[in-house]
């Protein structure tokens, strides 16, 4: 590529915009609101418990987002209403799909996931193996607490990420939501087409399956031992369409990979990237340890996350090229005889495009 067409100039004695432009008077209001929200949230966490039921989570997120929109233009509020409707529709469809799974009547997968796990681990059941080696009925170890804490992040991590993106960048929120909705859509489709019995149920003597040795379902034990608890409001019972045979894919494992994967490009140090990516591994190990999921459930969840990111990454690149092509065409139409930068359009050799000083 030749010399850049543009140059960045830096003039001496420049004045900061913050000095020239009057400050937004609502900034202090929003900051005070966020501080108050944080205090109340922490108080609620320690006194009443971690908010985990969907409606309570939605209310808390709604309050957070409204604080972030205080003093914003009417257009931003209109977008917010539209976004909330889309978001609510997505979750309602998700909840409803769990009911459809019961009614659709597709054959229940009982042994298949267990057999895949046995194949992957040379004849061993990972759930049983982990509980034999690490679980002690009357003792709670540090890893019980870590696993339990990781398990409960499922209820807040994606929502916190969504809320922060919603307030800070609508465009990034939309990018996040497209991938997230795709993940939920594929997962829900699989819940309907491939209802799968989770390990704890497959091992539970109360059910007829008993294809695994008995497993303890001790998800909340570590969490409670730290003096913490989950907050579930009573209205959850009115919406209790929960599908116990929605083990494939694991949404816990999916979300645990999804959130770090979305923010990974913004993290520069390699060691920090690696550290962040240990979280989905901890989550997967916890799920297997608790008997909540098979390993293959977690793997399926990760694959769907990967496919969702790949698809939307491709689609967004395609959209950018389509828009750029329209621009190049318009420029070439206005200046006939000039060659179009087809290499840039095709993406074969894209210059960095930054105008340098």
């Amino acid at each position, binding site marked *: 590529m030749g010399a850049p067409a543009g140059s960045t100039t830096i003039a001496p004695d420049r004045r900061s915009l913050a000095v020239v432009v*009057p400050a937004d008077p609502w900034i202090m209001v929003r900051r005070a609101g966020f501080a108050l929200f944080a205090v109340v949230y922490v108080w609620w966490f320690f006194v009443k418990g971690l908010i985990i039921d969907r409606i309570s989570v939605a209310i808390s997120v709604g309050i957070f987002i409204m604080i972030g929109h205080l003093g914003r233009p009417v257009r931003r509020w209109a977008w917010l209403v539209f976004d909330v409707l889309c978001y609510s529709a997505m979750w309602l469809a998700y909840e409803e799909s769990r009911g459809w799974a019961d009614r659709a009547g597709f054959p229940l997968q009982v042994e298949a996931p267990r057999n895949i796990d046995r194949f992957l681990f040379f004849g061993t059941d990972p759930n049983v193996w982990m509980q034999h080696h690490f679980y002690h009925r009357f003792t709670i170890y540090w890893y019980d607490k870590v696993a339990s804490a990781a398990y409960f992040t499922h209820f807040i991590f994606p929502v916190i990420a969504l809320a922060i993106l919603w307030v800070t960048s609508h465009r990034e929120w939309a990018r996040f939501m497209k991938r997230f909705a795709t993940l939920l859509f594929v997962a829900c489709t699989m819940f309907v087409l491939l209802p799968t019995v989770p390990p704890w149920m497959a091992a539970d003597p109360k059910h007829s399956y008993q294809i695994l040795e008995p497993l303890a379902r001790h998800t909340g034990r570590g969490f409670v031992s730290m003096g913490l608890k989950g907050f579930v409001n009573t209205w959850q019972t009115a919406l209790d369409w929960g599908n116990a045979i929605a083990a494939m894919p694991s949404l816990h494992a999916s979300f645990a990979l999804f959130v770090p994967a979305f923010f990974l490009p913004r993290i520069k140090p390699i060691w920090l990237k690696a550290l962040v990516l240990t979280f989905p591994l901890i989550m997967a190990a916890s799920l297997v340890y608790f008997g909540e999921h098979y390993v293959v459930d977690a793997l399926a969840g990760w694959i769907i996350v990967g496919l969702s990111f790949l698809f939307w990454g491709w689609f967004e690149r395609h959209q950018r090229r389509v828009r750029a092509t329209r621009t190049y065409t318009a420029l070439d139409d206005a200046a006939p005889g000039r060659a179009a930068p087809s290499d840039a359009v095709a993406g074969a050799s894209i210059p960095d*495009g930054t105008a340098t000083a």
Partner: protein
Amino acid sequence: MTPRSIVLDAGFIQAVADADAPGHADAVRVYRELVDGYVARTNRLFALSTVLAAHPTATRRGLFAPVEVLYVSRRHRSDSARVGAVVSADMALVLVVMDRAKIRCVATLGHDFDAFDLEIITPAPMPAAGPAPGATGEAPQEPSPTI
């Protein structure tokens, strides 16, 4: 990597859209490069809604397809009236919108933004090409316009 956000100011937009405008060739040259950066996801391009509204829909969807709209609200306008610098009303509005959107880079053909703590993209001088002027016996070429 987070793309760099760049506001295309009114003069720049006008120069790109109007083939008869002064600085059109330079503006197009810079704009092509910015669009290349947009394709490579190193740039995000913005313009004020008031600026884009001056152009037909076909132009906005064609020539300016990669440009995102920064909507100007009533509050932006009232805040721009209180800008503490001797600038035009349009300029004050751009500064307010850039401040609120936390954008610190502007593509322009003029020098209006030079006084502010911003990254300013302007057309660079055209690189010299071919043999030195006069080497072939031709008359020396006029230097390309620099803004």
